[in-house]
């Protein structure tokens, strides 16, 4: 209990401190100490609170509930405050705020919302999430300190408000811990909307026209989710008579399906599933750490987390199947569109949408096996994706570009950074790293359910393989002597190396993760038989050990220039051109814009997913 309260409340302290102290070095120390503390607390929680049964904690004082209502009101005012810049064209954004908060606060004050006796709880899923937020989130925060220094050197036009940026991150932690430990949906709603506000602050950070535009788009899209959530609260209070999440999940499916679907809607909205994918793409204008934070470990994970919570109700319902299909659609569309992208961050964004779709697919199916897979996916995705975002951010700062084509031969120029990036990419798709283990688990889980899901997983996985592999290929091309080395990367290394090591370690230790954390949640590990673990171990061993071969010096190698149809000149990067002078040859990856056109696929997925969303609610009646 004390761990939980510490984790929820402590991040507020550094947030306030960061706003108070303007000195950069003081801010740095605040961040380091606070991150370390949060990390330790998360691990401490993991050590003490894992177990087969969830633990519920009662809070008797009604002051807390009052505080939440007060918080809601303050939040509503804050939202309205940020909307002051808006033109009338965007009238619906304040309207959304007023409607949802008006309703919730009115219900709350009029006492129609039943009280929750045990508003806090912890179970293994919370612990896993806490660990992810604590460890990955804090590494990202540490990285931010170094990154923002460079960022402001490079963007002198952006006003330096890094204190408030860092404060927003800690506020985010506060909200996230609140979400994962709350058992009352009114509480969750409160924290839920804080994340929306934080994301708005982060996205609008550069203060450019584009940043404002994207921030407001994110705002209204996310507020839609909030609206759904508030409706869930109203419906649950009125029809189900409780806003206790645990009780809701234990009720008769037909009775609670609608509020649960509304919560899922909010979850998918936060997880940037189609048709809401646009906000996540727009969020790429923000400084990289915020992308890493929003898209790997925190914000979007809150969305899938809540869906996972709901999955016991979704299981074996038609609406649940539709939820799964929306996830599947996002998985397919995200992966397919990523093929046609050459901006590193956009590829990461689309792959995030895709991977989250896969998790939602699992949540929609809701069988124990699928949930197993989903939890694994959450863990591996958080690690590898955060690593990728941070690495791309550093590459951008070093080379001035995050275009994948400009990363050609990066391994010769910045070997260490590239290796961390390779670990990240391998973690995303290569057996036996995390994502592939999870995908395998998903397949095994899906195969028995229905013949529709496995093809989705298979096709999406293949598409994913394509764009990751070609990116990897770009990185590892050996272009010869290195003209440029990593310089000026300071504290960022902590995060990069930390995440790289964690990515490999988690993969090696995943049977333990399964045994200690997931098994108590969803029962006996049905899939990960001894033999498979053994094989994964062998493969991982190969993967880790074989690169050592790079350090062996081989004899009898005869160096020749690359094959250039005999048109070689003395420089291996050039050939004798048609006009009689040496010409640079180059190789660009395939993007197949015609085949996997972003525009067409995006529009198609929007239409498809909106139709599915409607279907989802229609199915509720069945």
């Amino acid at each position: 209990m004390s761990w939980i309260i510490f984790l929820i409340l402590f991040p507020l302290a550094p947030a306030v401190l960061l706003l108070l102290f303007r000195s950069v070095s003081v801010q740095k120390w605040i961040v380091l100490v606070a991150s370390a503390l949060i990390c330790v607390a998360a691990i401490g929680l993991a050590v003490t609170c894992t177990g087969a049964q969830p633990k519920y904690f009662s809070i008797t004082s009604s002051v807390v509930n009052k505080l939440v209502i007060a918080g809601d009101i303050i939040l509503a005012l804050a939202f309205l405050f940020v909307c002051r810049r808006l033109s009338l064209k965007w009238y619906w954004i304040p309207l959304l705020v007023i409607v949802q908060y008006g309703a919730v606060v009115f219900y709350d004050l009029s006492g129609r919302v039943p009280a929750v006796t045990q508003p806090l709880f912890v179970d293994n899923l919370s612990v896993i999430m806490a660990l992810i937020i604590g460890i990955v989130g804090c590494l990202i925060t540490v990285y931010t300190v170094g990154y923002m220094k460079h960022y402001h050197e490079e963007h002198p036009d952006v006003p330096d408000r890094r204190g408030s940026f860092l404060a927003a991150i800690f506020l985010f932690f506060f909200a996230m811990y609140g979400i994962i430990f709350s058992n009352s949906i009114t509480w969750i709603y409160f924290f839920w909307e804080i994340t929306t506000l934080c994301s708005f602050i982060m996205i609008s950070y550069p203060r450019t026209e584009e940043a404002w535009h994207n921030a407001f788009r994110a705002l209204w899209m996310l507020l839609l989710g909030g609206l759904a959530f508030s409706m869930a609260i109203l419906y649950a209070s009125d029809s189900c008579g409780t806003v206790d999440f645990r009780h809701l999940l234990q009720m008769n499916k037909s009775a609670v399906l609608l509020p649960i679907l509304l919560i899922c809607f909010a979850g998918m909205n936060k997880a940037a599933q189609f048709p809401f994918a646009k906000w996540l793409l727009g969020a790429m204008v923000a400084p990289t750490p915020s992308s890493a934070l929003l898209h790997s470990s925190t914000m979007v994970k809150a969305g899938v987390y809540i869906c996972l919570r709901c999955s016991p109700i979704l299981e074996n319902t038609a609406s649940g199947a539709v939820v799964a299909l929306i996830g599947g659609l996002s998985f397919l569309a995200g992966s397919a569109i990523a093929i046609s992208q050459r901006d590193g961050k956009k590829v990461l964004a689309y792959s995030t949408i895709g991977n989250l779709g896969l998790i939602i697919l699992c949540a929609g199916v809701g069988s124990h096996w699928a949930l197993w897979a989903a939890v694994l996916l959450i863990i591996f995705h958080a690690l590898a994706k955060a690593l990728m975002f941070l690495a791309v951010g550093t590459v951008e700062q070093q080379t001035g570009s995050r275009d994948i084509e400009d990363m050609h031969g990066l391994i010769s120029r910045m070997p260490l950074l590239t290796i961390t990036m390779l670990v990240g990419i391998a973690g995303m798709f290569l057996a036996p790293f995390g994502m592939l283990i999870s995908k395998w688990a998903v397949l095994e889980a899906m195969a028995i359910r229905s013949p529709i899901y496995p093809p989705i997983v298979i096709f999406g996985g293949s598409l994913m393989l394509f764009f990751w592999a070609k990116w990897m290929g770009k990185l590892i091309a050996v272009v010869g002597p290195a003209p440029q080395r990593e310089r000026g990367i300071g504290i960022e290394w902590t995060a990069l190396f930390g995440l790289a090591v964690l990515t490999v370690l988690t993969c090696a230790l995943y049977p333990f993760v399964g045994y200690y954390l997931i098994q108590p949640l969803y029962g006996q590990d049905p899939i990960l038989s001894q033999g498979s673990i053994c094989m994964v171990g062998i493969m991982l061993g190969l993967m880790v050990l074989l690169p050592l071969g790079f350090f062996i010096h081989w004899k009898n190698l005869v160096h020749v220039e690359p094959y250039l149809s005999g048109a070689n000149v003395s420089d291996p990067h050039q050939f004798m051109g048609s006009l009689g002078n040496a010409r640079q040859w180059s190789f660009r990856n395939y993007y197949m814009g015609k085949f996997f056109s972003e525009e067409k696929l995006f529009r198609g997925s929007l239409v498809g997913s909106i139709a599915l969303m409607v279907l989802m609610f229609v199915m509720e009646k069945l």
Partner: protein
Amino acid sequence: MNAFFWIAGYILLAPVLGGLINGCDRIITARMQSRVGPPVLQPFYDVFKLMEKDNLTVNRFHGYYLFIFLAFMLVSGAMFFGGQDLLMVIFAFIVADMFLVLGAYSTNSPYSSIGAERELLQMLAAEPMMLLSAVGFYMVTGSFHVSEIVACDKSLILYLPGVFAGFCYVLTIKLRKSPFDLSTSHHAHQELVKGITTEFAGPSLALIEIEHWYETILLLGMIYLFFAFNPIVAVLVTLFIYFLEILIDNANARVKWELMLKSAWLATIILGGGNLLVLYFILHG
């Protein structure tokens, strides 16, 4: 213990068998072209010769990818013949292929890079059907484990005719036979010179050849699974399918990537997906 013998057998005998099949392939191909063709042991001569040649490298790194490539191919095959999880087998197989692709990328040569890109396209085209076959096996036998699929006394082919047809379709891609020999080809005269293997020479190329034999045996092993209820029939059908591949190889021009991708996916969805759908309704009412 039985599994151990199978694994050992695969690691030791697969290259021999694969080489012989390759030798026969070349003779049959030659006969189809009204030629006499090389001796049946020619693939072995080739490989031993390549071992004796200079090890040419563009840079000293790309050789390693080939070792990892071979290692994963061995793991994949060993898992298959050891009766392990078929999905894991296919994933390991994909990883193996990935490392060939990465090796080609790492040479930083235009032709091998384009070859690598095309190899990725081939994987994109072929991989879904392979995984779908595994799902098909699972739906019939209730297990992903090769040992249990083999032990199953149902005649899988009766349940999975569409999956089988789809698998045969992508087999052409995996065996790099015409019309799908886009990324590299055993024959010369391809627009990418040798595509993905352009920069690998001497012992490195020998390694790729040997790996190709392992790969052939593994793929034929997957065909065997469809007929595992009767080993004799299974072996005969497997050989017949290989012969069919040679015939297709000799009766087609190389197609372009778009057609390959579209047709392979269509085959996967219609033949594979359709089969599974029908099967699902039969099995679950």
